[in-house]
């Protein structure tokens, strides 16, 4: 956060943070925007019956207003009972797998999309 403000890219952020938006410990904030793996643009997709997947929202994590919208949408989906998963690649084997995220700050910086789907229930 301090490095970003020191570089003059955006104004300093107030210290007070929402409980669900732990920006101080967010890996997206800690990672430098200059790293190759950091992808600022992210999409939120949701599985819906009769539609396949629908695009909920997308935005640039570097822009404060868009990130607020992303955070709000993330919390809204979790409040509706959805599970959030990020398709990732295992660094050791290179195989694709999924990573479940319970907080916006848990989204890996290299993630391009987050998929929301209904939580599992016994059938």
């Amino acid at each position, binding site marked *: 956060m301090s490095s970003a403000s020191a570089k003059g890219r955006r104004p300093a952020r107030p210290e007070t943070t929402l409980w669900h938006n732990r920006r101080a410990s967010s890996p997206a904030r800690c990672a430098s925007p200059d790293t190759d793996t950091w992808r600022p643009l992210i999409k939120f997709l949701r599985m*819906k019956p*009769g539609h*396949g997947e629908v695009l909920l929202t997308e935005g640039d994590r570097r822009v404060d207003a868009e990130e607020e919208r992303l955070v709000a949408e993330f919390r809204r989906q979790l409040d509706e009972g959805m*599970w959030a998963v990020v398709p990732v690649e295992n660094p050791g*084997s290179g*195989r694709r797998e999924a990573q479940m995220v319970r907080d916006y700050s848990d989204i890996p910086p290299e993630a391009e999309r987050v998929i929301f789907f209904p939580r*599992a229930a*016994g*059938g």
Partner: protein
Amino acid sequence: MLLALLALALMAAILAASLFARTIARRRADRSRRRRIPRAGPLSYDPGRERRAEQRARELLRSCVNEEEWAMYRDLGFMRVDGRQLPGGRRAAAVRPGAAGTHNKSEGPDARNGEPPYAYLIYPHKPILAYVPATAQLLSEYCVEFPDLTGGGATRLPASDDVLAKWMALTSDENRVIGRANMHLVGRQLDPARLRRDLWRLSEWERRRGTKGSVRIRRA
């Protein structure tokens, strides 16, 4: 004579009038009954929309899973996910035998063969099957679904979305999804004969692709 004819005509008219009145009353009753019965609304199931949804779901599935898993689902209709829990609560690495430049780091009993100690078969809208790849022993069924209760209409995801949801849940948090599932002995919803045939199909499919670690089917 004329008087008799007039009397006959009068009686016929009276009888006809009563029949006519009864017919009108019956038609009125039918009409009022039809008005009370609500007409069925248009069908909410749209085959075209469901087909498009399934097509979108397949594209999403293909973009998320590994190439081998996608080919398996496309060709066989189901998908395999290796189990990751080892004895003692340890967690195996997500490595599949036969992958280029990799080797199985599992410390399970079949580490030399590169096979995981157990695996799952994922079917669309059917229970998840747990089995032992080395012996093709069928372990149990895990009945789990992902109902969308937020909307007012259908709650069932497209088939490929259901498979993708199970794949994501198993690869990200296996304990959680298995803990939520209803476990049953094999045979409750899945036909054991069909499962063995599917395992044989899987072994043949892997043999044709040249993938190592294909399932050794126990001969009956």
